[in-house]
Structures are given as structure tokens and as C-alpha cells.
């Protein structure tokens, strides 16, 4: 890839001191002045991306409120099928994961490799736990009794005629959120293997910072979903 090598970390001229750890040997891509410059840019990019994420979900919330106004009874009826218990547990799980990912960033800054890796793993498993609870204790049960979106809805108990729509909203919102959690876990796995190689340290932790911010957004979205879906009846 002749055209891309110039952008890669090592300008041909630079003399390498191989004794240093990788993250200290890191050079910003050649179109940036230095690491700071690159770091700021990456951070700005991530923030913009998160802005789009927020807008995406706010579209979802917008739909939620409009239909809640149109069919309050369906939404109340539907909400009663959700177990606050599981919602609450999942909220706590995500809040803890938020703390761990923040810690991970801090350890990256201080170059504490051991705890950096530990926190990344913790966050990863928090995500896993969230999904496990969501799928095993919530989705699975609803699939069995037929509380499914739209035409797949075949719940037999007495229900408001518009509840299929509520389930559309429920599955839509939580589904899109869950898919974000899955992506997040992928990112943490990736971070973990890079951190094993010692890629991150005081001078260079863009990736950790970025993924961290992303994970916070995923949490915040859930913080909104939880009361809207589980609590407001």
C-alpha cells in the first residue's frame, strides 16, 4: 500500500529506541502536528459521532411519546408486563460498567497497564451480564407468551387492541439499544488485545477515550429507556 505508508505510525526517517514501550514510540499520523493535535481531533470526531447517536435515539423517544399520547391505555397495559426488578438490576449493571470504563481511561492516562486491562475486562463482562439478563430473563419469556411486535403478537390474555404497537416500540427501542451494547463489547474485546500489546499509555490512549465516551452514551440512553418503559404507568 504505497499510498498509505506515509500515514502510518513510523515516518521512514525516524530513529527507533526499541527499549521504549509501544505507546511511547507512537507517532501521530503524518497529517497531524503531534499526538495532542491528533488526540483533540479524534475526540472531536467521537463527540460528533455521539451527537448523531443521541439524535438517532431521540427520534425513537419522539415516536414513543407521540404514540403514548395517542394510546395511553395500550402503553400502560403493555408496561405492566415488564418486570421493574430486571430493569433495575440492568440499570445498576450499566452504571457500574460506566464507573469501570471511566477507571480504565484514568489508568490508561497514568499508564497502569494491569488495572487498565482489569477494568476493560470488567466492563466487557458487565455488558455481557446486561445482555444475558435482557435476553434470558426478559426477551425469552416475552417470546414464549407471544408479547411480540406487530403481526407476531399472539398473546392470549386480555389486552388493549393497540398493545401490539406498544410491543413494536418496546422491541424497537430495547433492540436498537442492545445492538449498541453488543457493538460496545466488540470494541472492548479489541481494546483488551491492544492493551495486552501495551498500545496504550499516558501519551496515547485515543481509542480507550473514544470507546469510553461511546459506552457512556449507551448507558445514558438506557437511563432514559428504563423509566420510560418500566416505571411510567
Amino acid at each position: 500500500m504505497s499510498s498509505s505508508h506515509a500515514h502510518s505510525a513510523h515516518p521512514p526517517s525516524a530513529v527507533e529506541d526499541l527499549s521504549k514501550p509501544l505507546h511511547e514510540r507512537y507517532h501521530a499520523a503524518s497529517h497531524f502536528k503531534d499526538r495532542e493535535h491528533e488526540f483533540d481531533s479524534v475526540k472531536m470526531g467521537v463527540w460528533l459521532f455521539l451527537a448523531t447517536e443521541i439524535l438517532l435515539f431521540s427520534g425513537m423517544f419522539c415516536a414513543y411519546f407521540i404514540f403514548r399520547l395517542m394510546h395511553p391505555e395500550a402503553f400502560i397495559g403493555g408496561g405492566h408486563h415488564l418486570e421493574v426488578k430486571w430493569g433495575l438490576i440492568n440499570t445498576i449493571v450499566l452504571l457500574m460498567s460506566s464507573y469501570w470504563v471511566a477507571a480504565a481511561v484514568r489508568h490508561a492516562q497514568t499508564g497502569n497497564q494491569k488495572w487498565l486491562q482489569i477494568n476493560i475486562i470488567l466492563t466487557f463482562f458487565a455488558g455481557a451480564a446486561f445482555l444475558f439478563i435482557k435476553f434470558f430473563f426478559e426477551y425469552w419469556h416475552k417470546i414464549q407468551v407471544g408479547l411480540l411486535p406487530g403481526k407476531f403478537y399472539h398473546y392470549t390474555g386480555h389486552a388493549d387492541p393497540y398493545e401490539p404497537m406498544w410491543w413494536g416500540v418496546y422491541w424497537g427501542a430495547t433492540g436498537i439499544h442492545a445492538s449498541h451494547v453488543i457493538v460496545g463489547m466488540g470494541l472492548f474485546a479489541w481494546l483488551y488485545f491492544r492493551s495486552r500489546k501495551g498500545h496504550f499509555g499516558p501519551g496515547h490512549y485515543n481509542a480507550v477515550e473514544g470507546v469510553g465516551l461511546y459506552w457512556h452514551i449507551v448507558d445514558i440512553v438506557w437511563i432514559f429507556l428504563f423509566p420510560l418503559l418500566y416505571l411510567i404507568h
Partner: protein
Amino acid sequence: MSAGYGHHGSYLEYKGGHNDPFWTVKLPRTIWDWASTIDHKKIGVMYLCAILFMFFLGGMMAIFVRTELFNPNTVTTIAGKTVVAHNWIGQHMGVGENIAKSNEYYNRTMTLHGVIMVFLVIVPSVPASLGNFLLPLMIGAKDVAFPRLNLLSWYVYLVGSIFAVMSLVSGGVDTGWTFYTPYSTMTDDGYLRVVWMVTAAFILGFSSIFTGLNFVVTVHKLRAPGMGWFDMPLFVWGIYGAAIIQVLATPVIGITLLLMIFERTFHIGIFDPRMGGDPVLFQHFFWFYSHPVVYVMILPGLAIMNEMIATGARKPIFGYRAVAFSTLAIAGISFIVWGHHLFTSEGEVAAVVFSAITFLVAIPSAVKIFNWIATLYKGSICLNTWNLYALAFLFLFSIGGLTGLFLGSLAVDMHLHDTYFVVAHFHYVMMGGTIIAFIGGIHFWWPKMFGKMYSEIGGTIGFVLVFIGFNLTFFPQFVMGSQGMPRRYANYVEEYHLYHMLSTMGAYTLLAGFLTHLVTFLHSLAAGKKAPPNPWGSLTLEWTNASSPPIEHNFDHEPVVVHGPYDYDNVIPPQTKPGEFVLPRPAAVAIQH
């Protein structure tokens, strides 16, 4: 500054050994080189080719549409049975006798035309091709902020197009480019076409988010030393404004299309009245994106205009700051006028507010037009193909924009909504605005991009054909529109026949015009004479500091900005032949700054 300058030689040139065998080494290497490049210039060029191809495709659909409408149905009654003769699409699809079928073919052709032109052509057109190529050059950067993201967005665009093509070959969609529910969730039931097309639009959305995001960061972080916000070429301002809208509006269409896919596949009912949903809600969601996006379409067009007008008149853009801020004003206001597409949906009171704001958004556009015409004053105006296009833009976009005022006025829109008047309006702004500026821009930067000059004769002939053809195609549509000809009609009553025939002839003239351009460009690539670094005597960095075509990392030294982008009053354009360009005579009156 870390290393990386140094590799000289055009970004286009083959970097391998000079006697590499062609088939086994040179070709595969070159292909891989392009496919894997993260050089914004190469990505820009690849986009340019893809977009022009899609433009061709969409144009062909338009030609079919026009051919059909030239003489859709002459009904003759044979033995009591009405028989439809002359039905172009119909006959070529082998259903000449059958109105219903040929209507359906028409609807699909018309929809594909709209979808291709909007999602695959005009939205990415200028930013992804010229923007990608020029933005870093103009602000003196070596690349966009995130080159790999840039490559990704190119491949996302390809994947999106593939979905669109899949939908096309599996029969196409007949929803209209606006995908209005509940029709779009009911039609073609049991086929995946619609889902594919909507998915395509969804994916393309990401491509444009990535590009926009990349540009915003690039403009904020990568400007060369000495280039403040108001030393940027106005092209950059325009692309920047469009990029902001892309980043903020696209997610909403994303979720909307996602919900629509759910609706189609699971029937969750949110847009389906029979299940308690609200079909009009979709329209609100859709236009909340799609109105801002019309300014995503036009802002880059306006951006190109600045460069062509300034260089073509060798004048500083009159009222630089006004033009810069009007860009931001348009971007801002564009988010709160979507309701003007729904005046006749339910007759809501909110319509009044939307109407008022719609008129407001016209002002910044007006300001730009005025400033450009003022820029010509006391200039030294050339009439190269690209400047002809710049002047044509002023003519056509003014008509397009001014007719927007009819539509913004509530009572009149009750009559004009969904008639050909609207069709004419948006072709005058999209085709007569953006595409005209785009074609002009391609001519303008052609020497820089490919290092070859094009033939002015060929260019001028093409321009004349396009200009005449365009007005011939779309002006009659204003008339038949105000006379009540509804849009998306495969048939029409006799009284509109004349206008439709004129319109169709215009379309063929347009085709001829664009083909002339195509030939001119191909000829230039094959046999054009070598381009000097700064043929038009422009003052922006891509002309003054880079060679044509630029070297792999744009500049061999980090450019330092020593003069404004339009400082024609005091600076002889660098890299031009001595004596080729002169300075203006100092004005008699004192100049105010």
C-alpha cells in the same frame, strides 16, 4: 511537523518499477493501490466517477419518463373495446395494450429516477467528490482528519449503491422517492424490493454522516498556520455548513427508515392507521430530514459558485463575511421549515408558522445572489465554460428559488402542491442549481485534478445545449403545473399535451449536452495538453501552492498563508506565466475595509 513531505510526483502516477509487466504486475498493483488508498484525492476521484455514472443512470430513467410522457396514451375505441396505442414504456415492456401495467412501469421508472438522483447523486455529489479532493488542499492540509474513515465511507457508499441496484434489478420500487406510508408499507407485499431500497437509503445515510463528520473536524483542526476562519475560501465554508447539516439531520432519517423497515417486516403498526398508527407522522419525520437535506444539496453548489465567480471576475467576493454567515444562517433555519411540505396534509394551524419561516430562509440565499452579482462589478470577467456555468447558475437558481416563494405562500400552495409546478421548482434548484454548479466545478478544477486541459469549444457547445435544453424541459412544467397537472401521473388530459412534448424535447437536448461534456472530458484525458499549475490565475492554496495534478501529499512544504483567498487587488496569482495576469488599477475613491 513530523516527516511525510518528500514523495514528489503526481498522486496519479504509477509508483512501481517502470518495466513492470502490465497484466501481471502493473494492473493488479494499480487497482489494489486505488482500492486500498486513504489518499483523499484518489477517494475523491473514485467518488466522482461513481457519482457521474449514477447521474447517467438517473438521467436515463428521466429520459424514459419523458419519452413515456411525450405521448402516453392515444385512446382509440375498436369494436367498443378501448385500446391504448403509443405507449412507449408499455410497448417496450411488452404490455402496450394494458394501461394498468404500463402505469406501473411508469411509476417504478419515476421513483427510481428520484431515488437515484437524490440519494446516490446529488446528496454525495459535490462534498464527496470535489469536497474530498479540494478541502484539504484549500486549507493547506495533507489529508482529511480521518483518512481511513474516509475510505470506509466510500465503501459504505458502494454497499448502499449495491442494495439500490439489487432493488432495481428485482423489479424496482413504486413508492415515489418520499416513501410515504401507508402506501410504502403495503405495496409489493411479499417482495423485498422496498426493504432493499430503504436499506440502501439507510446505509447511504451513514456514508454521508462519516463524510460530514470528517469534514467538520478537518476544518476545525487542520487549517494551515495563518489561516483563520475568515481566511478560508468560501468553498470551505459551504462544505462546512453542509457537513454540519449532514451530521445533525441524517440520524433522524436513519431511525425513520429503520422504523419503516420494522413496519414493513413486523407490521408494528406505528405508521399504519388500521393498527392505530399515524401515517402523517412519517411525513413529519421524513421532511425533518429531507428539508434540511435540500440545503445539503445546494450549499456545496453555492460553495463552488464562490470560487468560480471570484476567479472568473478576478475580484474579492463582495461582502465575504455576509456570504460566510448566510451559509450558517441557511444551515440553521433549514431545520425548522419542514412543515412546508405538509400544507395540505391536514390543514393544521402550524402550517402558518412554517410558511413564515420558509420566507425567512429565502433571505440568506438572496444575499448570496446579490453579493455575487456585485462581485462582478469592475471585474475582469472571462467566459470559460466553467464561468458560463457560474453565470447560468445565477439565472437558473434565481428562478428556482423565486418559484419557491409561490410554494411557501399557503393559499397558493393549496393549489400548486403535488403539481408539476413543484417538479419544475425543484429541478430548477437541484438541477439548475447544484448540478449546474457541479458540472461547472468539474470543468473548473479539471486541470488540477487530472493535469490536463479540456477543450473550451467542446465545453462551450455542451454548455449551450444544456442551458437551452434545461429551460426547454422545465419551464413548460411551471405552466402546466399552475394549470393543474398533478405530478407522478403516467397519463394526462389532452390540454397538457403541448407542454409535455416541449418538455420531452428539452430532455433530449439535455442528453445531447451532457454527452458532449462526456466526450470533451474523455478527449481531454486521452489527448488534452498538459495543464499549468494555475491556469485560471486563482489565489486559493490548491492553485498557488500545489502542482497540477498535486503530488501525493499535496504540498512539498507545509504551505504558509500569506494572502487571503480572494486578494486579487494586491496579489498577482503565483505559478502563472509572468504578465499573463495583471493587477487592477487602484480605484479613484478610497477603499473601505
